[in-house]
């Protein structure tokens, strides 16, 4: 870990002594960055303002204008009106919560356990399993969706909540590599000390190793949470009876027969963003400082 003093020194070296050309280029780049930042933020300000308009005001009025009457009631209406054939808005929220939690917890837990076992235990198949895991990540396989979709049907996992459980038992990919790398660097002394105190292997995993790996586990969980909350394809393809906010809001707009009350729809969209933006507000440091090539650094 670098100290704050070292970091400050590094920053001052990076900033210090800008040439004349740089003194011209940097302000221009700053303006470009500012315009790009505004282009990312303004649409959401526009979305928020238009979510407070009446339906007629939105379709017929000045799109840039502030709402004539600030209809915060649109946010309540979202809960009443944004219903699908098979799910209410509350169902969408409930499905989002359980799907996100189940899939995030399971995938991170399984990768942690697999990474731990392969990093810390010696057995004959170990190097083959690791080699296969790496090999699978590097083959550019295209078109296996058809076979996978067929298999899900044959296993009776189609349109079942068990789909979320079974498919997230996978323990490979980048998350596995992160946890494998982390446990490779954890000393085995902790485990030996526990064995001397007559602790078993499960005790070592759950009471020593996993708590030690809390940092990378939390990072992986936060990233998985955001990904799973925003996932709409899984619901559309495999679990159509369990729409989440992401897939539900897409279906609501795509299948609207009598037109969409856009201000209310916008309110629904903004409600759907609350959890991920909240998590980002609290964990942006975790997410952004721990990113490394191949995913996340341990």
């Amino acid at each position, binding site marked *: 870990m670098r100290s704050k003093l*070292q970091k400050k*020194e590094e*920053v001052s070296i*990076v900033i210090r002594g800008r*040439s004349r*050309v*740089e003194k011209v*280029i*940097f302000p221009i780049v*700053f303006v470009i*960055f500012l315009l790009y*930042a505004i282009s990312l*933020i303004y*649409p*959401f300000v*526009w979305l928020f303002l238009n979510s407070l308009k009446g339906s007629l005001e939105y379709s017929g009025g000045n799109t*840039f204008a502030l709402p004539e009457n600030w209809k915060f009631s649109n946010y309540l209406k979202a809960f009443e009106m944004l219903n699908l054939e098979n799910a209410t808005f509350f169902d969408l929220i409930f499905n989002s919560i359980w799907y996100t939690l189940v899939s995030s917890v399971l995938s991170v837990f*399984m990768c942690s*356990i*697999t990474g731990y076992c*392969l990093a810390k235990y010696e057995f004959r198949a170990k190097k083959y399993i690791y080699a296969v895991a790496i090999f*699978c990540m*590097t*083959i*550019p*396989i295209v*078109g*296996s*969706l*058809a*076979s996978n*979709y*067929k*298999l899900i049907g044959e296993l009776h996992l189609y349109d079942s909540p068990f789909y979320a459980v079974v*498919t997230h*038992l996978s*323990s*490979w990919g980048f998350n596995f590599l992160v946890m494998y790398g982390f446990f490779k660097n954890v000393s085995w002394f902790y485990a030996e000390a526990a064995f001397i105190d007559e602790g078993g292997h499960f005790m070592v995993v759950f009471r020593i190793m996993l708590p030690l790996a809390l940092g990378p586990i939390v990072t992986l969980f936060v990233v998985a949470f*955001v990904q799973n909350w*925003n996932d*709409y*394809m899984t619901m559309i*393809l495999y679990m159509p009876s369990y729409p989440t*906010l*992401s897939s539900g*809001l*897409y279906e609501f707009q795509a299948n609207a027969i009598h037109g969409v009350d*856009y201000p209310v*729809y*916008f309110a629904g*969209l*903004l409600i*759907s963003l609350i959890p*991920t*933006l909240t998590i*980002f507000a609290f964990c942006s440091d975790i*997410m*952004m400082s721990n990113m*490394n*090539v191949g995913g996340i650094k341990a």
Partner: protein
Amino acid sequence: MLLVPIVHWFVFWLYVNFNSILLAFQTKIGDWTLNNFDYFFKEITAPGSNISVGLKNTLFYFCNNVFVIMVLALIISYFMFRRLAGTSAFRIIFYLPGIISSVAMTAVFENFIAPTGPLGAVYEFFGHEAPELLADPDTATKTILFYCVWTGFGTNMLLFTGAMSRIPVSILESIKLDGCGMGREIVSIILPLIWPTISTLLILNATGIFSASGPILLFTKGDYDTMTIGYWIFDMVYTYNNYNVVAAAGLFFTCIGVPFILLVRWLIDKVPAVEY
């Protein structure tokens, strides 16, 4: 404890991919045939067919990812690394599209560029008729490519700035003392030192060459010449339940993809690694 992940791999990776090869040579009722390949090759060579348009657009998205998004992300990262004013705020804002769901992002973008939205109002202000950018074959793919660029810097930017922040201070100090200009600094110091990150991202992009796509389902559902290979596969499976042709196409693209990725790796290995 390894039993579950190993069984999972056998079922959901090995069986799935093995079965995908078998499906490519079968009819819907399981008889052996080469008709899927016959159909696929006829389609891919027919101008204007879904697969040929999809292949063309997929390559556009791949080039967009590598030559536009990656390059711009590299430039953005350099200025952030050099502590441009407001870097901390810009970092968070530029990363936001990676946090916000694609459904919300595309809905905002779609309404923003719609004739009834702000872009339409600007067109009207200048006395022009607002175009339907996503409903015109000439502009639809370009608009989605633009959307991908607009929202696509976040992860690349974090990876590049992370790599740049690991460059030793002594090197940065010495180039300042030598009076190196910005161009020299980028070409001679920054790029060689972050080459491992760049090369890894190149390999990852090359691995996904035939999966490169934009959010086609959310924007156009493949209409207006916006088809990509990724969306075509989804559409054939989800809408038409045509697994066999998809499997044949997948096998074909995988067979092209493997030598391509080996070639990319070989080219990347030609660049000497810099030790520091």
